[in-house]
């Protein structure tokens, strides 16, 4: 036990596409402990949001994450509509649902490719990403953009889905279903994948609940926790779907949860197109949002995203808070990476274990910690303390009663 070396993984490391530091304490090839450090990618998005109008913020929100962009725009719009307190047209709800689900399909396929790359299976990576292009094309056809869709707006959506495009989308969904089933077969039967993923990165059900994991991470630990089912929003209350869970709690379970969810999403898109009512796609809502607080939450591909918005009666938010799913899932990483009894973690398992939560750090990094560099002391300031110390002489930020 005396020969423990700390191996830093990140903030620059080929396995991580984004900056984060995992210090692994390694004894030979075994990882005996891990420590996380985030905060390399703080972009000040929330602060930037305070200077822009609600409408402008939608487009900033979309850029919080390059993969699940629509989720953040949707959440912010939802939170804003929550403050205003007006219903939006039903058709817009359905169109938003289609957007969210297409987004989930592309995100899960992207993740499957990345996971394959992490275990050194580049062929699967290339094939999955090739087939993911099909979804990207559908998304472009629907919203006009491949990545930042700019679909959601406050009060509805900005683009309608005409009949012929919907039919094309259905055809693509059929073809896609076949492909995804093929990949499921492959992941279940390919020996080397199973060797690398079975029993790796185990997060037991109790730990998952205690550490507040979200999304596929907690569902792969056997907890049916899905905001779409638990707190139906958009059109999820009218569309039946299954919350996929697996109970082997390892990386294989996370792979299978995501693949099965992709299949569910394909069904949701079909249902949504079938059930979509006709009518307007957007309600005109006031630019200036009344005083109040609003919350938007939805199930992003990675887990639950929460947006909190506080308005002081102007057209700009007084405070905007985003909680991305990776922040909730990060806590379970040290647990997954610690060898305990029969459960042994090897260095080789670190990348795939970390990737299995589908981390997105640029979405996550918004925590600020106050540190006195000279003494190394760190502390936490509450909102009102900061306000008292620094905001006194800034009338534009003053909260209206």
């Amino acid at each position, binding site marked *: 036990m005396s020969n423990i070396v700390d191996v830093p993984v990140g903030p620059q490391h080929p396995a991580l596409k984004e900056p984060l530091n995992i210090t692994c304490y390694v004894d030979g*090839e075994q990882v005996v402990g891990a420590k996380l450090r985030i905060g390399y990618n703080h972009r000040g998005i929330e602060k930037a949001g305070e200077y822009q109008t609600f409408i402008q913020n939608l487009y900033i929100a979309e850029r919080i994450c390059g993969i699940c962009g629509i989720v953040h725009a949707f959440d912010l719009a939802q939170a804003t509509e929550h403050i205003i307190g007006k219903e939006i047209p039903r058709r817009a709800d359905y169109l938003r649902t289609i957007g969210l689900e297409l987004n989930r399909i592309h995100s899960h396929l992207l993740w499957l490719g990345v996971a394959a790359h992490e275990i050194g299976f580049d062929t699967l990576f290339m094939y999955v990403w090739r087939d993911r292009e099909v979804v990207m094309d559908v998304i472009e056809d629907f919203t006009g953009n491949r990545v930042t869709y700019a679909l959601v707006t406050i009060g509805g959506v900005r683009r309608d889905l005409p009949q012929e495009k919907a039919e094309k989308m259905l055809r693509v969904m059929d073809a896609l279903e076949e492909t995804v089933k093929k990949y499921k077969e492959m992941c279940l039967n390919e020996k080397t994948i199973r060797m690398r993923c079975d029993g790796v990165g185990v997060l037991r059900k109790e730990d998952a609940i205690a550490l507040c994991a979200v999304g596929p991470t907690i569902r792969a630990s056997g907890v049916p926790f899905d905001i779409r089912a638990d707190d139906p929003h958009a059109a999820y209350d009218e569309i039946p779907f299954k919350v996929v869970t697996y109970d082997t709690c390892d990386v294989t379970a996370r792979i299978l949860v995501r693949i099965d969810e992709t299949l569910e999403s394909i069904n949701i898109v079909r249902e949504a197109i079938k059930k979509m009512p006709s009518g307007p796609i957007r309600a005109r809502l006031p630019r200036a949002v009344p005083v109040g607080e609003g919350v938007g939450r939805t199930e992003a591909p990675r887990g639950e995203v929460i947006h909190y918005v506080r308005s002081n009666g102007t057209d700009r938010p007084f405070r905007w808070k985003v909680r991305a799913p990776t922040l909730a899932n990060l806590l379970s990483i040290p647990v997954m990476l610690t060898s305990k009894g029969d459960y042994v973690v090897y260095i080789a398992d670190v990348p795939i274990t970390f990737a299995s939560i589908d981390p997105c750090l640029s979405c996550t990094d918004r925590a600020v910690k106050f540190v006195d560099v000279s003494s190394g002391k760190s502390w936490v300031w509450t909102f009102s303390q900061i306000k008292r110390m620094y905001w006194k002489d800034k009338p534009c930020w003053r909260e209206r009663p």
Partner: protein
Amino acid sequence: MEGEAVIQELIDVLRTLLFPGFLFFVILGLFFEWIDRKFYAKLQNRVGPLYTGPWGLLQPLADFVKLMAKEDIVPEGAIKPIFSSVPVFALALSLFAALFLPVCGPQGIVSFPGDVIVLAVVLTLLVILVFLGGLSPASRYPEVGAERSVLQLLGYEIPLVASILGATAMTVGLGGSLSIEGIVNAQRDWWSILGFQALGFAIFLLAAQAELERVPFDIPEAETEIVAGWTTEYSGKKLALLRLARDVELAFLCGLGATLFLGGPWPGPLVPGLGGAIVSTIIFVIKSIVVLLLLTVIRAAMSRLRIDQMVNFAWKYLVPLSIFQLLLAVVVAPLMIHLLTL
């Protein structure tokens, strides 16, 4: 008389330096890297190297030249003499090993009884170099890579040597010999792979894949785990030489597979005169490419194993199988030949 001797000497030097010696194998190595990349890309539905030269043929060379021109950094804590000499030795050893291959006739440039053993030693020495190259820069990722490479060697060395020795069984009917030349000549009418050696060939392919550190055995340089493994700290000229050494080693191992199991240059040497050498060379290269394509398919069809899984797999399956095939080749096959000829 003296003049003839000088000319003979000169021819030998040219043979070693140009064809079928160093230059030939450097070019063959780069060419094989291109085939490997192109075929790997085809299997993955990509295009692979495309722009440098016709069909991207010059891409490996361009990579080499680019790396040669890059800044060469030596880490501060490195044991500099070892760190700097590993790439040179790796290239030298690979090229040395390649001299034994019977490219343009049943005999390599260097040939003596027992050279098969020398080749086995060279293959192990190459891994020792990997170990030194990983330990000398005093950095964490290379250190892990070096440890892994030696662990991996424990797994595949015995199967590799056993499969090579199994190939020598072909020479039993011809009085027995431990030389490449003997093995090649024994396959004049009947390639080893067509007999009891098919299993040996399969074992050789897997062991060669491990020796070359390619998926599923690219554990010592696993990119997503330990950056570039034991090569992490190498840059510039040293990295260029290491990559070239790897290419030559790839060509060498493919050639060795072709020599031991696919009959080497046969039936090329049947053609008389200079034509025989040319035909032999072409046949040898084609057979090597067949081995290379098999290696590439293995690389494309699997994911990387963990080091413990690799060693487990090697000791549970590869080692017993290789001993079995050695028995088959050395005991059963000669017995059957004996019975058949009675």
